[in-house]
């Protein structure tokens, strides 16, 4: 039940998928609010939340990748055209790359800005780069560009899942839902 099979996702993969999805959705308003807020203790707290959730996403995505390597990946539905298979492969690869690159570039921004942060007010985050104004600017631009790319790929991902469910009537969406029984 916990592990994946060739037919469906196990509970661990399902929960990680939805948890990361929820955290990414939380990150968007948190990040935008933190940037827009006037300089105040509230602004700093919003940034602590954004950085904390971002690092949590990084850990969870690494866990997902690790879990993927020791579990079978459910097969794509039979009869999918070649371009769809390539698009599915490519967009999932993009999702993983972006889910890693966004927290990492955020970490670089924080290090370059040289602002100490304790994740969830508990765990001090070490710096991965030295301080630097130029590096901070470049990593900030990259972070925003990656966010726009992630938003695009997520919309594609959701659209594709809904298309599989409503138009192609297969179990691609259903097998990611924890409350549906995987086929035996």
């Amino acid at each position, binding site marked *: 039940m916990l592990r994946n099979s060739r037919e469906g996702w196990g509970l661990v993969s399902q929960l990680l998928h939805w948890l990361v999805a929820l955290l990414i959705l939380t990150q968007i308003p948190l990040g935008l609010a933190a940037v827009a807020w006037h*300089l105040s*203790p509230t602004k700093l707290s919003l940034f602590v939340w954004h950085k904390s959730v971002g690092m949590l996403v990084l850990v969870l995505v690494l866990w997902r990748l690790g879990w993927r390597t020791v579990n079978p990946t459910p097969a794509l539905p039979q009869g999918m055209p070649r371009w769809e298979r390539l698009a599915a492969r490519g967009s999932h690869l993009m999702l993983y790359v972006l889910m890693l690159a966004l927290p990492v570039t955020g970490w670089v921004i924080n290090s370059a800005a*040289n602002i100490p942060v304790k994740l969830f007010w508990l765990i001090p985050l070490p710096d991965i780069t030295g301080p630097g104004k130029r590096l*901070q600017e470049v990593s900030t631009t990259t972070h925003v560009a990656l966010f726009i790319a992630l938003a695009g790929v997520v919309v594609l991902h959701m659209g594709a899942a809904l298309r599989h469910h409503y138009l192609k009537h297969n179990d691609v969406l259903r097998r990611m839902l924890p409350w549906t029984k995987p086929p035996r």
Partner: protein
Amino acid sequence: MDKTPSMKKLWFLAVVPALCWSIRGPAAEWVMDKETSRLEFVVHYEGTPIVGELRQFDTRLRFDPRHPRQGHLRVTVSVASADMNSADINSAIRGTAWLDVAQFPRGVFDSDRITRDKRNAYIARGTLSLKGVERAIAVPFAWQEGDGSATMTGHLDLERTVFRIGTGEWSDGSTIALEVEVRFDVHLKRVPD
């Protein structure tokens, strides 16, 4: 040469000050070596210390460790030279809620009295003028003197809100602590008599 009565009366003008000078001892004048002297401050953000440096400051000192009371210490600080090694923090602390460097570019400590605390340790009491606020503070320092040079080291805690540094939402100290440690390592050269 005959001594005229007027000159006889004038002898004390030369002798008395000379006598006083020899009893009191000449307090040496010292100037700061700007290359090696450091003035730092430590701020705690969410319990994490962040060290800042005041890159431009000057120390003028008249001081003889055997006669500290005749000494005088004056430190002038370019508040605008505050550097916390972060572009974001540096721009934030220059704002009106913090240091307001546009209106108050300079901070000054001017001593009224220097006293001996213990061996090689002294206290300079005087007035700190910072962000338009004047407060009496005590600056303890250790004195190490060599051949024509000396070092003055020490640290003290200031409550930032006394000087209206970090106003409004920042004034409760929950995010950024009220206590700011100031520490200095000042290298001095004796001005030849």
